[in-house]
């Protein structure tokens, strides 16, 4: 049963610390998305990649956030330094050439 895998599921960290979230897309999917979900803003698209190349990261705060795909099986979202306002659930999703998007279970980030 193919699925998008995200780690960690939960992360609590102190303000100022670096946070790295990881995503393993479904094998064969060539598009990977990072979304952030909060009560206030709903689902926000942070960035997405196609064939490992960043296509759009306009939704991401550039000064502290970075997203990469070092290879086709791994996408990372890094926050450095983290702030309390970054607390949210971060979802990774992947999509193949002729499929809808499949979402991971999310990483719940709490910055204290």
């Amino acid at each position, binding site marked *: 049963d193919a699925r*998008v895998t995200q780690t960690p599921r939960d992360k609590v960290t102190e303000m100022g610390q670096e946070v790295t979230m990881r995503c393993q897309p479904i094998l064969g999917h060539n*598009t990977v*998305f990072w*979304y952030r979900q909060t009560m206030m803003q*709903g*689902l926000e*698209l942070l960035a*997405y990649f*196609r064939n490992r190349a960043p*296509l*759009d990261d306009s939704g991401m705060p550039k000064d502290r956030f970075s997203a990469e795909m070092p290879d086709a099986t791994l996408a990372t979202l890094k926050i450095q330094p983290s702030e309390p306002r970054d607390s949210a659930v971060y*979802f990774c*999703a992947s*999509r193949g*050439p*002729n499929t*809808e*998007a*499949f*979402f*991971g*279970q*999310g990483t*719940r980030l709490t910055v204290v």
Partner: protein
Amino acid sequence: AQSVAQPEDQVNVAEGNPLTVKCTYSVSGNPYLFWYVQYPNRGLQFLLKYITGDNLVKGSYGFEAEFNKSQTSFHLKKPSALVSDSALYFCAVRLGDNFNKFYFGSGTKLNVKP
């Protein structure tokens, strides 16, 4: 600008009654329309999509949605609600197969009471 609107934050319905969750969209082209469901502490799960063809689309768990081009709507429906349908529902639009960006609505919380 492309956008998706879900006008109701919450929908309450009694078990066994029909349910409708509303969605309207604004796009500059032919939309691909989707419904996703999110259960507590889970990621979004695909329910159904409209690409082309029949305006009535059937999806998972007995859900269906009707594409109405003149009203730019894509409402989600189910003839008989179950308590287990209680969840957060998101409408989304994508502009054709070559465009990857999904635009999501704000979500509608469906509460089905026994």
